[in-house]
């Protein structure tokens, strides 16, 4: 199964969800398994249209559990595979996200967030799954989650999600939201080659690999493809051959290794958009569409001479603490606007004194707008 590579540049005026699908295709995604759910459905629609034309495969499964199962199976067979969902479907996928972590299967999970809990507000924006992305599945596991805040970033971050997932052999999550997913902006689909596309390391020679979990130093192990090779895949703790083991030292080491392979190479993962952070006294920490409202406020404050700055993690998990700590130390006030009741704040609190922190939370289903942020700040002064 191969995909036809992009060659020509395209300029589109399109939705974030379509840009996400275009990013996946650019990265060489050739398998989509999913179950449509608002507000992510356009990702699936676009993949359903494009993949068959490119010799790829699209399959609509019976639910989100089966969807991620199909994606993991396809990835093990050598495909670059993805799914797209929203909160309720993301909840159903949690068990298999853990499976993909321990079995070290590269795949991309797009979650276009909406209001929750449960079926919540299907058509309204929210940032309800920032923490579910980190801790939704049980056990210690690595998490890489990227949060785009524009149509263009829905493209570039999806490409990056595939790259990180292929390189680290781990699932990577893209956290969109209803606003970013559905709004239209102009963006340019780059020519192939303009953005690096990383493919997983496969065994040399005949492709046979008897120890698919033997790591190469701090780099993840090669991943043999089913079809050219065969190996044992399990959600149980396993040794380098892939077969289950309860040997305490092997279990200890392998559990640590799947975290270390990600967290020891932060330089390959960290990505932050920092505006005026070098002298910011009032620092805004925000992601996704809420960050665009925060950026508007920062610009308004700067025009008035207020030293405001924006710290926007594009890689949310692992949280870019190295970049954040000095900004947090300089700031007198840290404002955390988010469309949930304080999920990002829990992370900010790890690195900054809580009396400095001003939460701005909106869960009404309406977009978090700059006036709401300013009003919350003004209210806190009284």
């Amino acid at each position: 199964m191969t995909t036809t590579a992009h060659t020509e540049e395209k300029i589109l005026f399109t939705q974030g969800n379509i840009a996400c699908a275009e990013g996946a295709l650019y990265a060489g995604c050739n398998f989509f398994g999913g179950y449509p759910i608002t507000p992510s459905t356009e990702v699936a629609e676009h993949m359903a249209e494009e993949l068959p034309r490119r010799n790829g495969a699209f399959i609509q499964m019976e639910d989100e559990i089966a969807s991620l199962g199909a994606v993991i199976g396809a990835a093990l067979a050598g495909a670059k595979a993805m799914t797209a969902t929203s909160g309720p479907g993301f909840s159903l996928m949690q068990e298999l996200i853990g499976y993909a972590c321990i079995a070290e299967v590269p795949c991309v999970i797009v979650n276009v967030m909406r209001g929750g809990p449960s079926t919540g507000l299907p058509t309204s924006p929210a940032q309800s799954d920032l923490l579910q992305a980190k801790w939704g599945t049980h056990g210690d596991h690595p998490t890489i989650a990227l949060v785009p805040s524009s149509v263009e970033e829905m493209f570039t971050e999806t490409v990056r999600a595939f790259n990180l997932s292929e390189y680290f052999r781990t699932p990577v999550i893209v956290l969109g939201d209803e606003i970013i997913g559905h709004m239209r902006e102009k963006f340019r689909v780059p020519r192939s080659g303009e953005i690096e596309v990383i493919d997983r390391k496969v065994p040399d020679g005949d492709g046979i690999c008897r120890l698919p979990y033997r790591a190469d130093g701090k780099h993840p192990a090669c991943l043999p493809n089913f079809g050219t090779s065969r190996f044992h895949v399990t959600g149980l703790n396993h040794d380098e051959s892939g077969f289950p083991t309860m040997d305490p030292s092997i279990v200890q080491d392998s559990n640590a290794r799947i975290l270390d392979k990600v967290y020891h190479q932060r330089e390959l993962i960290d990505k932050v958009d920092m505006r005026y952070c070098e002298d910011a006294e009032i620092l805004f920490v925000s992601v996704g569409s809420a960050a665009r409202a925060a950026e508007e406020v920062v610009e308004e404050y700067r025009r008035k001479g207020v030293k405001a700055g924006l710290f926007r993690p594009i890689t949310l998990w692992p949280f870019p603490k190295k970049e954040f700590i000095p900004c947090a130390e300089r700031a007198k006030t840290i404002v955390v606007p988010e469309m949930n009741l304080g999920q990002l704040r829990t992370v900010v609190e790890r690195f900054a004194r809580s009396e400095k922190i001003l939460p701005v939370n909106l869960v009404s289903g309406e977009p978090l707008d700059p006036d709401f942020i300013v009003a919350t700040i003004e209210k806190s002064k009284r």
Partner: protein
Amino acid sequence: MKYEIRFSGSGGQGVITASVILGAAAALHDGKNVIQSQSYGPEARGGATKADVIISDAKIRYPKARHIDYLVSLTQKAAVKFIKTLKKGGVVIIDSDFVDLPDSPDHRIYRLPMTSSSIAKFNRTTTLNVIALGAFAEVAGLVSADAVKKAVLDNSPAGFEEMNIASLDMGRELARAAKKN
């Protein structure tokens, strides 16, 4: 400069399509910064639906409309609901065959007989949204005529190009006539 335009009407009238065409015209053909968004949800079928376009020379940060400069309304329900979102000094364009609003010193109203003109010329109202788009383009002058035309053609299904361009021109003509009054 930054302008916010709200197309509104009943689900199925093509207000979202009109907003997408306007956005594409300004973004792809006039090189402006543009964000288009729309309301989803139960109200998007029937009732009062809306689709917004922000057109700016500068970077657009917050992506949602906050202070509407131009409101286009194709139903009374939508007009009444969204007139409250129009800023002082804003402009309203309505299909006068179905919609009326009281005069106000706060905004200028263009009452254009879009439906009756469409029936008289085309014997149908399928391109009411394009007529409204043409009227808006003429009233506001924010997007070049060439850009709007190109975007309409880009979004026309095969065989409907001519009718869409005629509808665009009809909207412009209705707006020009109203401007004289």
